[in-house]
């Protein structure tokens, strides 16, 4: 029976010891421990969430960057193409102009040459006429006696002179 009869002294002391233990532990141990554990868990959760959002933001940013780069590249290609076209056009224009100018110059030269040539021919004709007149004078002077010979000579010279 002694085994299952509660002792008064034990009950008395246990109430005191357990009460004090509960009070002291609650105040100095359980309160900081439980609060800290909750706080730590909350901060870990927060950190994980933050990491997640940061990662998402980084991904978004990267996608944006990629798009920007692609756009820039496209624009660059367009610009280069445009520039090339412009340059080609300019070169073609320049070529054309040069050709025209050259042609005009040649034409001008040709006209000038023709004029010169005509002038030269006219001048030669004039010279020839003078020359023939001189010759005729000389012939006339030297061979006036022989009329036949004179005529023959004149016709021969004339043949020669006709050009």
């Amino acid at each position, binding site marked *: 029976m002694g085994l299952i009869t*509660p*002792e008064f*002294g*034990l009950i008395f002391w*246990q109430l005191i010891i357990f009460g004090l233990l509960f009070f002291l532990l609650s105040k100095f141990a*359980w309160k900081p421990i*439980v609060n800290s*554990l909750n706080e730590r868990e909350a*901060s870990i959760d927060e950190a994980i969430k933050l990491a997640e959002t940061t990662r998402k933001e980084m991904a978004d940013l990267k996608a944006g960057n990629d798009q920007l780069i692609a756009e820039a590249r496209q624009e660059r290609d367009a610009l280069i193409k445009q520039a090339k076209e412009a340059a080609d056009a300019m070169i073609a224009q320049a070529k054309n102009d040069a050709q025209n100018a050259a042609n005009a110059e040649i034409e001008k030269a040709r006209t000038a040459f023709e004029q010169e040539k005509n002038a030269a021919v006219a001048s030669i004709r004039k010279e020839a006429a003078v020359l023939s007149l001189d010759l005729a004078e000389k012939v006339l002077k030297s061979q006036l006696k022989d009329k036949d010979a004179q005529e023959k000579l004149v016709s021969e010279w004339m043949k020669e002179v006709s050009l």
Partner: protein
Amino acid sequence: MSNLAKVFNPKMYFSNILLGVLISFLSFHGYAQEDHASATATTEGHEVVADSTQHGEAKAEAGAEEKFDAGKLILHHIADEHDWHLFTLGHFHATIPLPVIVYTESKGLNVFMSSNFQNEHHEEVPYNGFVLEHGKIHAENGEKVWDISITKNVASMLISAILLLTIFIGIGRRYAENPHRAPKGIQSLFEPIILFVRDEIAINNIGKKHYKRFMPYLLTIFFFIWFNNMLGLIPGGANVTGNIAITMVLAVIAFFVTNFNGKSTYWTHIFAMPGVPKWMLVILTPVEIIGIFMKPFSLMVRLFANLTSGHIILLSLVSLIFIFKSAFLGFAVVPFSLFMNVIELIVAFIQAFIFTMLVSTYIGAAIEEHHH
């Protein structure tokens, strides 16, 4: 992120710790048990001698050959006592005297050491009008004695209280310094257990909304019971949690905590169970009212019986050697009692867990605001 989850997984920690605790106790206990056994046997022999000379019943030949009474030995060991008997070697008694505090109406409060009840031959003698008989103090004039002595169990409980206070206030200070720091040393031993009490016991049974209010109480009973269970397993330790007075106080506190927190739903379910025909209430209400008292009563008996039976099994196994008077039996008994001791270590934890678990389910049922 998965790494983080692994680091903070309390279950993984927990199993590792349990294993570690078991292994650390294994070696120490196995060897200590034998010592304990021989010591207790000698003690018993002696007490019988002392008893017989005092009562003048047994004869002179009753000496070392005294008949071994296992039942008496075991009951003596699981009971409370006024001094802390560690072991006896021949005529040397290693006993720590404890203060006796008694109150009677005529003499008032008396405080003296328990060693005063023994003379130099270790015979029980009266002191100051008080006699110690079978572990109880009586007044010689037959008065009612209020005995609030620091007995072995009280002393053991004080040791556990000091242990609990030093460990957990120390840990608490570390948490208060910086809650974000990773646990270290003894803190990392107890953190998973505290988390276990919080997540598996408190939150599971009481719910996220109210559990915080009961955490200090649940943690206190859990560690109080567990520490006292463990201290009881040390050879020479007191059987604190296997004492009916201790478990009774714990149960009564649980009773008050549960019923003082009872919400209207709880009381309606007891006095007017909804959805039951009126005439049935005549039977049901008394059953429910008995239930209020049965719950803490079962808490009291469960803890008391489990711890006491564990001690009885261990002591019985060791007593076998002396009953059969064969040292060779030790080869069978020692491994088996070692095995039982390890089981008792698990029981120490499980009983603390079950007690806390059941209290939290009772609280959970009491504060539930639930509609069918």
